[in-house]
């Protein structure tokens, strides 16, 4: 790893020593994600919301639903936009200002998992073809940063979307008019779950915490849908994977994704 401080180098050698013995710095198994706690309905002003706590990483996701113009080449579909931000209170290193490349990457990877899985049936969100559609905005804010923001943001956003309601609009004089008290469930087709794995030396670890995150050689985020198919994927970090390692990661992401999907399903069931 190129850009490590001395402390990080010491940490890395400690983490690697432990991995040689099959252990992790927080006593987890290599393929064990941190405990995930999802609370839904945490922001009543939003159309859907969730707080995800993955170990000590915490993300709040709020869904806003409002009429918007469609994308130029997709007049027959609603729009979906996903953002992410690391709030300055989340970590001493977090700064205010325009989003840095690493944060843009998080937002785009979370967005891709949800979009490519077709989680929201956007074809049901057209008010007037090519003119006016319903937009779903998923804004994720990191409130506590202990590594693996990809999965924490993704779980929060997915849980928030599942519990969200779509208000009803009707077109009057070419303008959408809100019809009060007629919100319906968001049309959900599948539940995409991302699983991020890190490579340190020869070891693959699931859901790295911040200590591990800072000395990863490379990482990969694989998103799977409810059918157990891969729907999106992103490699990051300054090293590469072998084909065998990638196949192992794909299998891990399906097995772990299934467990996480169950947790999210359970957490969101009551609020539908």
């Amino acid at each position, binding site marked *: 790893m*190129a850009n490590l401080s001395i402390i990080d180098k010491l940490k890395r050698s400690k983490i690697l020593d432990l991995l040689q013995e099959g252990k992790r710095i927080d006593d987890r198994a290599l393929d064990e994600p941190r405990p995930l706690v999802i609370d839904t309905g945490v922001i009543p002003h939003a159309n859907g919301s969730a707080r995800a706590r993955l170990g000590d990483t915490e993300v709040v996701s709020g869904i806003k639903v409002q009429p918007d113009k469609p994308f130029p080449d*997709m007049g027959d579909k609603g729009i979906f936009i996903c953002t992410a931000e690391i709030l300055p209170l989340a970590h001493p290193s977090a700064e205010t200002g325009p989003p840095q490349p690493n944060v843009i990457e998080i937002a785009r990877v979370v967005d891709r998992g949800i979009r*490519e899985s077709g989680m929201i049936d956007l074809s049901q969100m057209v008010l007037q073809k090519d003119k006016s559609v319903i937009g779903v905005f998923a804004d994720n804010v990191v409130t506590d940063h202990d590594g693996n923001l990809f999965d924490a943001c993704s779980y929060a956003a997915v849980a928030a979307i599942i519990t969200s309601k779509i208000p009803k609009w009707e077109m009057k004089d070419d303008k959408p008019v809100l019809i009060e008290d007629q919100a319906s469930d968001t049309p959900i087709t599948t539940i995409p779950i991302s699983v991020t794995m890190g490579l340190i030396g020869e070891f693959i670890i699931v859901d790295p915490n911040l200590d591990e995150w800072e000395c990863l050689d490379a990482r990969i985020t694989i998103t799977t849908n409810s059918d157990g198919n*891969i729907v999106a994927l992103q*490699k990051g970090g300054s090293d590469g994977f072998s084909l065998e390692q990638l196949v192992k990661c794909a299998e891990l992401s399906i097995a772990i994704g299934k467990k996480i999907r169950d947790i999210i399903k359970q957490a969101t069931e009551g609020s539908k």
Partner: protein
Amino acid sequence: MGGRETDVVLLDENGIRSDGRKVNETRKVTIKVGVLKNADGSAYIEFGGNKILAGVFGPRDVHPKHMSNPDTGILRVRYHMEPFSVSERKNPAPSRREIEISKVLKEALEPAVILEKFPRTAIDVYLEVLQADGGTRCAALDAASVALADAGIPMRDMVCSCAAGKAADTLILDVNNEEDQAGQADMPIGYMPNFGKITLLQLDGVLTTDEFKKCIELGIEGCKQVYEIQKNALREKYFSSGDNN
């Protein structure tokens, strides 16, 4: 890849694609080395309809200074599309997409470049997409690694790149723009051929685990073909008789 509705037949009954290729065939790739006078290393690639210039500067002083690292050199990559490179004019300011691609390309090149030899310096790679036709990040990565070699930067290996994907329920090599828009999956792959290491990997679209494995294997075949073209391009400049190694 929402599998958007389209009139284009992506694969005909003879297994021929919309641009006349077979499923396991790449588009035509040509690379020229040393096309810029001022850059320390440069390359120009035509990958199907993609036309991309790569220029490398460095190792050189780091500005801003706080970015420099006393233990190692740093690699900086900027991927940028010209406003005229796509059908509708693109805003020239870097988009979120371009910032993300710059980052993944940097991370795809880093494993190959021996940066430790140049502490407190930066190596800057500028990638300018003059015309885009699907698969620009792969083509840009191919040109970047040739330009780095042309700049005389010590490297462990080349990085070669090609996408594989799925259209009309068939796995295909080197996804073009139409197949990207209307197909089912697009997976750009960057590969260090002498290490067997995959350094760029992204996926949009749906694949089963089995298809995922096959898709990587297919993509790697494409990468290896590009690798030969990269080597030949470098030979062309440095051993112009062309028959040396």
